[in-house]
């Protein structure tokens, strides 16, 4: 969430806070009493990316493309099937519960649903103070005082310490979840759809709060969302996912103004714009001229994803090579990578593939 216009990619990027390489998560599908393995949901299938200290990486994509699974893998709430995760240079891919405990302080998660992620039988004080108990830490001045400070930090009344979650609105509950995530002064916060369950007017309150906290506490965020307008507002860099893969990874402005992957272009063109004057223009324009691209059908199943480029069943640019060969995620411009044989800038990587 840097100031607009200020380039986020500094010339000499600092060492990444989080480094992910070839990350895979397959959920086995079993059948019958013997729980015979009959296949797998390829929820996340080979993700490689970095998260730089102090930045916000936005992750966007349609339902079921593996965003939440990615979030739960990098916070190590799920065990990866393959690949490697490094936090501050340390391999945390297969750390056990005990070895992860000190790491838990540094990496925290905020969940989508402010209703189900808070235990209804616990007071706000107990909920926000839980991380201290789990870690066996007594903050300076005692738990209660620290919890009240945290409640104030997220814009809640510290007097509400003894209240229960049901006494709060959705936006306030999301603030409670944020206070809990910040208790141990984490370095990295992974937020999975932090505002999508909230009303528009409340959404903006929480987006601004996340923004302020980042500035105040020097936090690094990975923010997962399906709303492309929200993602543009909060992110410095953005990863676009499709069926378990990153198809495009770029700084915010180039991603929104000059996307390289056909899927990103289609996604952007599908966003309804709150301006009735634009409607007629958009629908009259032919596809390709900045008008709306209507994709065919739905996202295929991650149990048996399409061969080659996973988007080829819905892509209007697909050629024979697309069904055959998986396009690698290549840096096509500085700070801008895409996985496509026929990227939007005309530089055809498919031509290269076809020769070999």
């Amino acid at each position, binding site marked *: 969430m840097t*100031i*607009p216009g200020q380039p986020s990619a500094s010339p000499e990027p600092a060492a990444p806070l989080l480094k992910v390489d070839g990350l895979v998560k397959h959920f086995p599908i079993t059948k019958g009493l013997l729980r015979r393995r009959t296949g797998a949901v390829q929820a996340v299938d080979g993700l490689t990316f970095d998260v730089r200290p102090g930045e916000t990486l936005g992750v966007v994509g*349609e*339902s079921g493309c593996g965003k939440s699974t990615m979030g739960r893998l990098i916070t190590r709430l799920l065990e990866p099937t393959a690949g490697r995760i490094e936090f501050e240079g340390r391999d945390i891919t297969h750390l056990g519960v005990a070895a992860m405990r000190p790491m838990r302080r540094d990496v925290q998660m905020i969940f989508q649903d402010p209703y189900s992620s808070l235990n209804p039988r616990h007071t706000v004080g107990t909920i926000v103070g839980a991380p201290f108990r789990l870690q066996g830490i007594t903050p300076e001045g005692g738990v209660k005082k620290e919890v009240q400070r945290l409640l104030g930090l997220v814009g809640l009344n510290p007097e509400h310490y003894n209240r229960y979650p049901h006494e709060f*609105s959705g*936006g*306030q509950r999301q603030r409670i979840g944020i206070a809990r995530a910040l208790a141990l002064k984490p370095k990295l916060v992974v937020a999975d759809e932090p505002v999508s369950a909230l*009303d*528009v*007017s*409340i*959404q*903006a*309150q929480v*987006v*601004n709060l996340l*923004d302020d906290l980042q500035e105040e506490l020097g936090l690094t965020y990975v923010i997962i969302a*399906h709303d*492309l*307008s*929200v993602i*543009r*507002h909060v992110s410095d860099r953005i990863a676009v996912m499709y069926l378990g893969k990153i198809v495009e990874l770029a700084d*915010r402005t180039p991603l*929104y103004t000059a996307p390289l992957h056909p899927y990103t272009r*289609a*996604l*952007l*063109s*599908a*966003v*309804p*714009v*709150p*301006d*009735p*004057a*634009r*409607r007629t223009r958009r*629908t009259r324009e032919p596809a390709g001229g900045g008008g*709306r691209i*209507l*994709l065919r*059908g*739905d*996202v295929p199943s991650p149990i048996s994803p399409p061969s080659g480029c996973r988007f080829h069943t819905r892509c209007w640019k697909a050629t024979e090579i697309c069904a055959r060969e998986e396009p690698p995620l290549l840096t096509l411009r500085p700070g801008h990578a895409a996985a496509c044989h026929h990227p939007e800038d005309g530089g055809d990587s498919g031509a290269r593939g076809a020769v070999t």
Partner: protein
Amino acid sequence: MTTAPVPAPGHPPDAFLEVRDLRIHFPTDDGLVRSVDGLSFRLEKGRTLGIVGESGSGKSVTSLGIMGLHTVGQYGRRRARISGEIWLDGKELMSADPDEVRRLRGREMAMIFQDPLSAMHPYFTVGAQIVEAYRVHHDVDKKTARKRAVELLDRVGIPQPDQRADDYPHQFSGGMRQRAMIAMALVNNPELLIADEPTTALDVTVQAQILDLIRDLQQEFGSAVIIITHDLGVVAELADDILVMYGGRCVERGPAEQVFHRPQHPYTWGLLGSMPRIDREQTERLIPVKGSPPSLIDMPPGCAFSPRCPYADVPAGGITRTERPELALVPGTDGHHSACHMTHEERARIWTEEIAPKL
């Protein structure tokens, strides 16, 4: 949606659909929930009305009320207290025989729900359900009805409709189910179509397909359409007129272009400022509305928006907190109404000087 000269109560209007002073209240253990509290609007054939508002503002209760379904909605069969008039094509529905309303439902008016699974029966094939919906209103044999069902499935973009008609709803993806429900709603060429959050559960690419479909179908059949949503982007895509609801009442309504480009109510400004916009230069900060939506059991006195309104002290004498502002025509406009105690000049100045530049 034109202005005041609303005919006297009990007299048929000239509009295709006219809702007059609709009130739907639910007695509950906690008190009386005033879900809809004095709503009036009209809609012509061939036009689309967008109803926007946050969750709990009374959008779904309004639509179920028009359909005569207020007792079977998502909140169970609680006894609703309902008053007002609903005129559809010259007939008043509230005082009509329930059997008559049932006949109209599905034939003259049809509805698309947010959750297609709740509107479709899990044990019957998609095709059988569309056939049934058709045969209730048309005396035709099964074969003719099936032909009609397949034709509609094809029309809403279901691939291989002849085969897919024999699938059960759970065999369809979310987007396909939504399309199948649209097919079912349209099978009798209804003159009024109400779509309640028809795309809220869908991905943006599928949403674009469905919005396109609704737009095409309306042009083809010339029906009147009400689209209900919390997403200002979706209404901007479809609606000719917009009605903004807050706490069970209309706070602003008018032609879409005017409501988006010269909004005349602080709550509408709040909605616009809260929303990050992909079609504009990036703003540094969103402008949220403070506080949260009101309780429909215990509405604030005066203007329901006053506890959250940054301009509540602009009208003199604290009138905003004691007297409820009525919906009034914005001077010099064609059918743009707003319910706010500030003068038209004050609102115009605040909009152009303080709000618009920050969006």
